[in-house]
């Protein structure tokens, strides 16, 4: 092709990126080689346009993040007091507030919860509020309840420190519940997995599931004060959900 041929102009015309296409059109009509280059560029761009962009799967994304942090953990400098730590303290405070609300409700309800194992309204709100906190850990938690809003999270952090340390191995819990709530927690988690809202927490490290190809979600939680993982695997529209003890990586739900 001769140098006088304006290949940039032809390429821009092929991209339909010219405000005034008449010079390019004239060039193509008067120059067979330019016309050939135009058709070639159009063909390439059409092939590109119809070829779906490759994307990471959720599992690949999770493993990528996990691999990065496994690799850099020994060399990473100490984290600043912002982000994760502060986020955890806020959540610990909220969890402590929630525990107080549940405890009061239990007293007032005179054991009704044991007969009707349903999640409290506050617990349900915590379940839905927590993913937002996960998404942006520097933002204030969504309001949980009047009791939680009134709770001093700074003081709560120290009073809930035991639970915080217990949950550390499983990452910060997104939901705190009792064993009596298991069926409803599992059901709500199933809904979130099917809706594509549940995530694979990068710190999840129970190898049996982490290395499986059908892992859909792994979110930290706390059941009766013990760190657990809410796991989903299989098909997204009908996932198998399990609750796994975070310390031992053994299934605690469904039972036997």
């Amino acid at each position, binding site marked *: *092709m001769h140098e006088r041929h304006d*290949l*940039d102009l032809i*390429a821009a015309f092929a991209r339909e990126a010219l405000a005034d296409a008449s010079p390019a059109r004239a060039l193509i009509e008067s120059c067979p080689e330019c016309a*050939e*280059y135009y*058709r*070639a*560029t159009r*063909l*390439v*761009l059409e*092939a*590109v346009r119809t*070829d779906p*962009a*490759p*994307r*990471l799967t959720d599992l*690949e*994304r999770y*493993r*990528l*993040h996990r*691999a*990065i*942090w496994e*690799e*850099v953990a020994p*060399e*990473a*400098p*100490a*984290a*600043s007091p*912002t*982000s*994760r730590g502060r986020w955890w303290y806020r959540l610990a405070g909220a969890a402590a507030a929630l525990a107080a609300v549940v405890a009061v409700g239990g007293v007032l309800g005179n054991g009704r919860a044991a007969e009707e194992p349903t999640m409290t309204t506050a617990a349900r709100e915590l379940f839905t509020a927590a993913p937002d906190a996960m*998404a*942006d*850990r*520097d*933002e204030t938690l969504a309001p949980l309840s009047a009791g939680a809003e009134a709770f001093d999270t700074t003081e709560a952090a120290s009073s809930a420190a035991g639970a915080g340390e217990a949950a550390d191995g499983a990452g910060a819990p997104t939901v705190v519940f009792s064993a009596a709530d298991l069926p409803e927690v599992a059901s709500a988690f199933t809904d979130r997995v099917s809706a594509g809202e549940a995530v694979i927490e*990068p710190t999840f490290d129970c190898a049996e599931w982490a290395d499986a190809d059908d892992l859909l979600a792994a979110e930290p939680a706390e059941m009766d004060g013990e760190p657990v993982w809410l796991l989903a695997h299989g098909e997204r529209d009908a996932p198998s959900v399990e609750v796994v003890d975070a310390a031992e990586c053994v299934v605690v739900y469904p039972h036997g």
Partner: protein
Amino acid sequence: MKDLPDPDLLARAARGDRAAFDELMRRHEDRVFAICLRIVRDREVALDTVQDTFLTVFRKAGQFRGESQFSTWLYRVAVNTCYDHLRRRKRRPTEPLPEGFEPPDRHVDSALSSVELRPDLTTALASLSEEFRTTLVLADVEGFPIGEVARILDVAEGTVKSRLHRARKELARILGNREAWG
């Protein structure tokens, strides 16, 4: 965190803020993966290159001076990482083309240029040289401007244009455009 610009996230990551680096990865990992997969043509290898890319970025986060856009720097690291992987693979035999695929014969009947008989883009890209493939992936597939491609590849803009023009002609020929080149 989501509102912070890339350089701020990188600065936080350099101080050990894991959430900041996770956010940075989330913003760019799909595009880095797409570029690497197009260049190295193997999903597992592409995943390795993405991991190596972000490890390099994390380790050198404190060295980023903001003289170029963060994305330019990131994609330059990614391309160089892909080249490193390809060089390591050099001793291995070239991947065979799909069964039944033959390069287009410019003298064959034009009916053979039907879309159904064309190899897909991935297969066609595999037939290009590394330099042509990378240039075309960045410019035509990922849509980076010529100047940005030049900065990512650390070559002159004229070099990018030259490679791009030749890559398009070659790719079009492979894709079956005999009408243009026959």
